Every structure is written in C-alpha cells, then in structure tokens.
C-alpha cells in the first residue's frame, strides 16, 4: 500500500492477459537511470496506460500497491505525454457490493433467526476493508501523479533531444 516512482526505461514486458479495461503483466523489468534494475511481478495497468507499456519506453513511471493489486498508475514521457489511470475501480465496486450484500444478509439473519452468520460477517469485514483500502489507493495514486505535475521526464539516455515540459 503505497506509491513509488521509477525513472528509466522499460526493458522487458511479459503480458499475462489483455482485457477491455486493463492489462495484466506477468513481469515488468525497468532499467533505472542510475543503472540499477527494478522488477515488478504480477502487475496491472489501466487501458490508457497499457499501450505505452512496451519494451523500450523511457520516462517516469508511477507505481502503486494496494490491497490486492499492484502496477503502473501513471507515465510521463520525454515528449510531454502524461497519462494517468487507476486500474482498481472495478475491484472497488466489487468490494462495495460484497460488503453491502453481506451486511444485508447478516442483518436479515439476525432479525429472522437471531444468529450471526460467520461467513456473511467475514465477507462484510472483507468488503469494508477492501473498499476502504482500494478507495484510499485510488485517491493516493491520483494525488501522487498530480503532485508531480510539471516534472521533466529525462530524455532517453544517449539521445540529444531535450526533455519536454
């Protein structure tokens, strides 16, 4: 649960599955500007970001981890392109539905039979925690990306092209 930034080049991209709203990756390997490497396993990216996530893409990558997801929520490229997309919106809705549906079930059981269903109670807690954490991650990733507005993405190493605002 948090955000981080990678300045560098995407060296290796292994796609697991492409869906209509997001793409999941088995592995993303970044070569950082300081020469080190950073690997992200089991990542996800929203559909606005996925087309840019290709081997050789250079820029500033904004990464997040949340309750059940981790991946790339933003990119700033040397040509000035800035793309943001949080891929957890669906999960947030699912957690909300799970939480509310099970809360209704728990209340119904208490009202009719007087006993507390353990599974329903557990899923209510899971839904509440999942919704809270995914919503928090969504707000944090947006803030993280917006606060870095105006950052100069470094040019591709070896090129003479200046970074664009």
């Amino acid at each position: 649960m948090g955000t981080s930034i990678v300045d560098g080049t995407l060296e290796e991209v292994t796609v697991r599955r492409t869906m209509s709203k997001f793409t999941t990756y088995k592995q993303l390997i970044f070569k950082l500007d300081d020469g080190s490497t950073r690997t992200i396993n089991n990542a996800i990216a929203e559909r606005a970001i996925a087309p840019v996530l290709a081997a050789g893409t250079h820029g500033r990558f904004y990464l997040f981890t949340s309750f059940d997801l981790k991946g790339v929520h933003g990119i700033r490229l040397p040509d000035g392109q800035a793309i943001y997309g949080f891929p957890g919106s669906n999960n947030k809705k699912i957690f909300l539905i799970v939480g509310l549906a099970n809360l209704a079930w728990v209340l119904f059981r208490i009202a009719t039979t007087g006993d507390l269903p353990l599974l329903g109670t557990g899923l209510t807690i899971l839904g509440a925690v999942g919704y809270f954490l995914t919503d928090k991650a969504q707000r944090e990733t947006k803030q993280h990306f917006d606060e870095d507005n105006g950052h100069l993405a470094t040019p591709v190493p070896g090129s003479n092209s200046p970074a664009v605002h």
Partner: protein
Amino acid sequence: MAVFALIFALLHGPGFDDENGSAGYLSVLLLQFVTLIVGGIVFLRWVYIATANVHAYGTVGLSTTPGWAIAWYFIPVANLFLPLRTMRETWQASAEPRDWEAARVPALIGWWWFSWIISGFATATAFHLDDPEKFPDAGRAAEILTNVSDLFTIAASLSLAVIVRRLTAIQKVRERDLLQARQAVAPQSI
C-alpha cells in the same frame, strides 16, 4: 504441544476426544490453546519488526506496512493469502532490498503456509463435526481430522521456526552491512 496432543490421542485410541476420553489429552489441548495464543503474540511481534526492518532498508514498492502485516491475520478471507504475500515480500526485501521482486523465495515459505491453512481447515471441520446432535455418526471422523490438524500444525510450526531463524539471520547480516556503510561515509573524527 501438538506433538503431545497427538501422542496422547494415539495412546488412548478412538474416543480420546469424547466425555470419557483421556484426561491427559484434554489437559494438553488446553495447554496447546494457551501456547497458540502466547506463540501467536510473539510471532506477530516478530512479523511487525521484520516488516519494519525491510521498510528501514529503504525498500520501495512493498505492499504492506508493519501494522497491516499483523492486521492481515485477522481479516476474514484475506487471512488465507495476504500473510503469505507479506512473508514472501519480507523475505525478498531482506535478501535484495533494491530489486526485491527479482529475489527468489524458498519453497519452505509455501509449505509453511500450506500446512497452516490445512491445519486450520481440519480443526474447523473437526470442531463443526464434533456435534452429536447434528452429526451423530461423525465422532470418529472428527477425531481423525483432529489428528490430521495436529500433524499439519507440527509441520507448520517446524517450517515457521526455520523461516524465522533464517530470515532473522539474513536481516542481521543486512543490518551489519548497513551499519558498516554508514560508518564508512560518516566524517572521521581527528
């Protein structure tokens, strides 16, 4: 305690868990519960410290804070897989703080979690079956499941002991290296 429980159960034979069962077994069962609570507190304290340590190394991109590393054990459904993820990440970040996701995780961590989950399910099922009114003929099955649970508890405990020992050793080496690196860059007094 699980070993003693298993020995008592095997010595007594069928019926060890019923009203006329082994008094020794029941005593061990109580001690096993107390040990689980005390051991759980000690283990969760270790989880907090180990997770805090990897954050202190400056590792970025970790999915869990020290507080949530403990909380995952108490969130229903999430406690089936997120404590495993936390343990894997803590191991990886301890072994390789910078590019931690590239670090290999020993299979032992998977075996520990598998044993722990099976043990939990066996205990829960045995507890559920141990109701003569609802399941009059399931007494023997409940006893077998109790034994299975004890076996997997033993496996999980032994695996965890090895994991804690090895991970603590890795973190000690990491801390020594960090300390030496800090001393190397600190200005020398004349």
